[in-house]
């Protein structure tokens, strides 16, 4: 064949060579390893690139010096003041207008909230409670309220239990008992939401509700001031700013309840016409004046805990039971970040038991002070942002043991790790606390709440038994926050 002829035939020859091959994803017989790393899907490496003047390579040919390119990416510009950015970061959104309205969802009412049939059902939180709860800081940013049309909550076994105690206390009237519980449980098990539910239910029963949303704020020396009380030993401190904020919160949230009660006792307070005031006005006075905040809080508490004797009730109004809750309580059992001057002229940390407001709550939680008209004192531990508190841990462990074996006599030494330094002052106080352990929700409850999420338009799969069972296991046996993470948040952009 002449060379020119051969050249002319090249395209035809090439056609002969190219044979269509079926595209297969996997070669037969190739071994698959289970792996969650993404290397298998990465594009093939393009071989070693020629140096562009990075580290570890010499300069280019003909160039005398080594030049390293600078990172020219523009950093995000910051907008607004630090305060406004923090406000934006920590804002609480309780509504998503894009979410579906769930049909047939009942509102939480005095009838539905306490009925046994309500266990495992989802209810919307009443509109007038939402503002109050927001004011009390009961909604937390990470609880995912922003995904749904409006705040709704699942009544679980433990919610119903608190409702029962509430019923008993309300019915008992004079000489009602006080329920004191420390809510414990693993991370995302619904401890803070249980407090929210308890507050909401207490408002339905027209109790006085008080909430400390984050105990850290009381002791970390950043968000509150502290002032010594003269003539006390050891030196006690009160917190003006926090007391005023708390009084403001109490006054706003319990407006209708407190307005019905008049001041019944004499207090040494520089307030005019104190005798004609109702408790709401008293609280407002305290909230308005920083210097008066703590004495007013004390006066308010004396009024609330005055005995409901018939003549007192007739003249000044009936004192309702009190629901006092606090979240992340481990911060108030030990040394605070505040400091005081010790005798040897050295700064030592102030013990949280010397801070009057935390001590007031601690005395209530541990039963040192009582509520003559009854009430519920709740404290929730936190598992995500907390400090370790060995005496509290010992007490919690003993509380759990007491739940399991009520008749057994427990020895502190059996729960005490001798290698860990323990604060005896705290331990003596908390030794007898009762715990309310929160575990996962049942499969029936899980099905109900997943159904609610599905009707809100946030679940992509079909809600069937197998699906519910799978998610229940994945969430460590129905730990509700983990369940939401596995069902809802995984579907959302960025998994938030």
């Amino acid at each position, binding site marked *: 064949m002449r060379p020119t002829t051969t050249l002319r035939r090249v395209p035809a020859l090439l056609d002969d060579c190219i044979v269509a091959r079926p595209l297969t994803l996997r070669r037969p017989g190739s071994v*698959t*390893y*289970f792996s969650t790393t993404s290397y298998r899907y990465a594009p093939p490496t393009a071989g070693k690139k020629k140096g562009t003047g990075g580290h570890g390579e010499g300069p280019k040919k003909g160039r005398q010096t080594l030049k390293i390119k600078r990172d020219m990416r523009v950093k995000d510009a910051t907008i607004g003041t630090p305060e406004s950015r923090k406000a934006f970061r920590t804002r609480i959104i309780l509504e998503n207008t894009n979410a579906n309205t769930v049909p047939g969802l009942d509102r939480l009412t005095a009838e539905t909230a306490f009925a046994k049939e309500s266990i495992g059902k989802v209810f919307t939180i009443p509109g007038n409670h939402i503002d109050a709860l927001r004011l009390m800081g009961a909604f937390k940013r990470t609880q995912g309220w922003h995904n749904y049309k409006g705040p709704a909550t699942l009544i679980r076994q433990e919610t119903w239990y608190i409702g029962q105690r509430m019923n008993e206390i309300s019915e008992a009237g004079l000489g009602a008992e006080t329920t004191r519980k420390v809510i414990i449980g693993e991370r995302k098990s619904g401890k803070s939401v249980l407090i929210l539910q308890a507050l909401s239910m207490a408002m339905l029963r027209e109790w006085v509700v008080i909430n400390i949303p984050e105990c850290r704020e009381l002791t970390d020396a950043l968000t509150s001031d502290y002032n010594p009380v003269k003539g006390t030993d050891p030196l006690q401190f009160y917190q003006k700013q926090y007391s005023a904020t708390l009084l403001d919160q109490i006054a706003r949230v319990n407006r209708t309840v407190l307005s019905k009660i008049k001041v019944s006792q004499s207090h040494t307070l520089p307030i005019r016409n104190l005798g004609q005031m109702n408790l709401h006005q008293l609280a407002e006075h305290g909230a308005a004046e920083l210097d008066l905040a703590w004495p007013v809080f004390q006066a308010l508490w004396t009024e609330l805990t005055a005995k409901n004797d018939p003549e007192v009730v007739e003249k000044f109004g009936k004192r309702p039971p009190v629901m006092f809750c606090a979240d992340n309580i481990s911060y108030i059992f030990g040394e605070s970040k505040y400091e005081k001057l010790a005798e040897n002229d050295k700064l030592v940390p102030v013990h949280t038991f010397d801070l009057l407001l935390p001590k007031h709550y601690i005395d209530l939680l541990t039963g040192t002070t009582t509520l003559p008209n009854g009430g519920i004192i709740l404290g929730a531990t936190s598992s995500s942002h907390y400090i370790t508190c060995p005496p509290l841990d010992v007490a919690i462990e003993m509380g759990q043991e007491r739940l399991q074996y009520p008749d057994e006599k427990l020895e502190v030494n059996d729960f005490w790790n001798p290698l860990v330094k323990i604060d005896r002052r705290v331990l003596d106080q908390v030794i007898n606390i009762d715990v309310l352990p929160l575990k*996962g929700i049942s499969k029936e409850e899980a099905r109900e709440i997943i159904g609610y999420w599905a009707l809100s338009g946030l679940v992509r799969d079909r809600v069937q038994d197998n699906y519910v*069972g799978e998610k229940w*296991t*994945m969430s460590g046996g129905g*730990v509700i926050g983990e369940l939401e993470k596995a069902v809802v948040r995984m579907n959302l952009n960025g998994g938030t």
Partner: protein
Amino acid sequence: MVRYALVHSIRNAASLATTPSRSISRLPIIRPFSTSRILALEQQEGKQLLTIQPPLDIEYEDVEDHPKPLLERVRIVPDSQSYFSARPSFTDTFLGVEHLYLKWKVLPRTATPQDTHWTSYDEVRAMTGNEPVPEKRYREMIRMLKDLDNIEPVVMPTEVLRLIDEHKRAFQPNQVKPKVFLVDEWGRSLGVGKRKTSTAKAYLVMGEGEVLVNGKSLTEYFGRLHDRESALWALKITERIPKYNIFALVEGGGVTGQAEALTLAISRALLVHEPQLEHRLLEAGCLFRDPRKVERKKPGHLKARKMPAWVRR
């Protein structure tokens, strides 16, 4: 003690063998090759003569009657060739093997050869007190042993078995079978898995989908949802999560390694309950031990592969 020549014993043994006598009788008599005079004589005359061992054990019964002393009448020939060899111990071994090889050549062999591992050349040399053993002879001996090893087990003579045992390696890799796990009396199945430096043991029992890892709940042990899904991947893809309870023990390595070690352990344990799931688990890659590990650091490198930065002197 005086011994008969090998020929005699071969004949006797052939008649004793368990193979049908008819086929044996037709076979020719096999004689060992010998250059010694006595054996050559015997082969000529068809007689059975004596071979004599090296001089120590000779019986002198008829010495008195004969005019010539025995040692003048006979030529003493050693029984074994090894007498003339520089490697007597190996030669003896070799001849022993060869003897049985020739003796039992008639027996039927199995269709598929055995996969026995034999003592290595170095081991044989060590056994013989470091004699200068030619490799060729060693290979020849092993060839004969392999052939003997292939004799049908039904007719396998005990002496051959003994010989094979002597030359077999103590550890036979092909004999090692993976441990077979079964569902125990409490309905549990056990699976074991590894990944990176983690090991996991998982007990599976029919149940409600409850999981305990080292005594903790799944969420307490694995903070990431990703790791939880990895750990239960075998059950997830087969839609079996709500059907089993798991009790797992994991140790070593990090969180990811432990989760993926658990994948293997759980899928193996699941196979004990439901062997028909094998194909699906294979497809999902749940049944293979991922062999990747941290690459070792090398001298001259900063890490496994990283080299020090370039410097102009």
